[in-house]
């Protein structure tokens, strides 16, 4: 059963980074460097955000003999979710900043 827990602060950072240019497809390593996350935290987060329908993924075909590369961007639901974030967060006195990579 899919549990829709509140996203962690790190997941919100990723969502906001993607929302800066929602039409643009982004690479995983770009997100690692932009949000200053470790890859071990980012990928489980991307998996869960995708499972929740907030992200869509695509493959960039490999050039020559290089492997294909995974791309990410927000879905319409993801954009709406990010747009609603400030209002949703405003009701909370203290943002939840604990770092639980299993949360996304």
């Amino acid at each position, binding site marked *: 059963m899919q549990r829709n827990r509140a996203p962690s602060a790190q997941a919100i950072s990723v969502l906001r980074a993607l929302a800066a240019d929602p039409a643009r497809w982004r*690479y*995983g*390593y770009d997100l690692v460097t932009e949000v200053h996350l470790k890859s071990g935290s980012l*990928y489980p987060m*991307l998996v869960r955000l995708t499972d929740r329908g907030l992200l869509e993924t695509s493959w960039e*075909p490999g050039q020559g*003999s290089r*492997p294909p590369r*995974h791309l990410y961007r927000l879905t319409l639901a993801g954009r709406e979710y990010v747009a609603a974030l400030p209002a949703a967060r405003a009701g909370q006195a203290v943002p939840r900043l604990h770092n639980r990579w299993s949360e996304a």
Partner: protein
Amino acid sequence: MGMLIVMLCLAGSAVALILRSARAVPAGPAARGDVPERLLRWAAGLLSAQRAEWGQAMLGELDHIDGWGPRWRFAAGCAGAALLLPPWGRTAAALWAMVLAAAGAVGVYAAVAVRYRLGAGGWIFAAIVLVFLVGFTLAAATLLRRPGIALPGLLGGLVVALTWLALSGFTFSGVTAPMTAPWSRLIAQVAVPALVGVAGALWGGSAAAGRRIVRLAAISGGLGLYLYATIAVAVLGAGGPPSDPGSTVSSTVGDRLGSAVLKDLVLLPLVTATIAWATATATARLRPSLAASLVSVPVPATGPAGGPNPDPVTTPHEAGPAVRVRSWHGAAWLLLLWAGVAAAVFLAVVSGLRG
């Protein structure tokens, strides 16, 4: 004699690994083949089928990262994530059972060490045992995640452990005593591991799966038998089989705990894994339909600027070692494997006759 067999198994394993690395086929023309990539490729293979795409995503990203440090950091982080990424399914129960068995063995060892005042040496040895058990559990965790490995591997371990227990008469006293019955070593150290290897290859459907099954069988069998032997020492103390004349209760108990480690956590897993691994490989070679192959996991491809692409991009996903082997390599490989098996059989027979 037991140490000689262990040495032979170690030498056989080393030769096999050297030959395996010599015949390995590169992952692809663009693959760098460095340690971070190998680590991540291995970890990606642990992901469940529905998450395999994410392993390819990590590998594809690693290919575009330059520099020793960044590649290491990225690969290590992704490997850790791949190890833990759910779903684990029913294999979680098997892993928890192995963790509990290892923790139980450590707990019983600690209780014995306190009760019989084994001193600093006993606790140092306990730390070594803990390292062994953590290694066993981690190895089991990686094997259990592979599809189709858990059930046959654990069943193989059960067969191995039950064989050793049956040869000791299913008694605590028999477990703590050396194996002296005629042909018992031949059965426990050669015949049953050989059968487990053949059954593993046939059940797994490939040489690679068969080898993983026998590794899990060796680990789980050794762990189970070690737990039993530790409990036996805790129950018997200095009683049971006669000990060396003049030895104290503490030294007798310490010796028995040490023997259990050597027998159940070193000898049994090593001998079982080596013999079964050899027979699993030989079985797959004798039946071409079981030979390891490279399969492809289709990864749905959509263009970043367009709609879904109906033609999937097929990405190679390692299901086992590649099989492009030059003929002399194959012949040498088989010769060495069977020489090792023959030597082990001979030593076990001689040992049985002398016993």
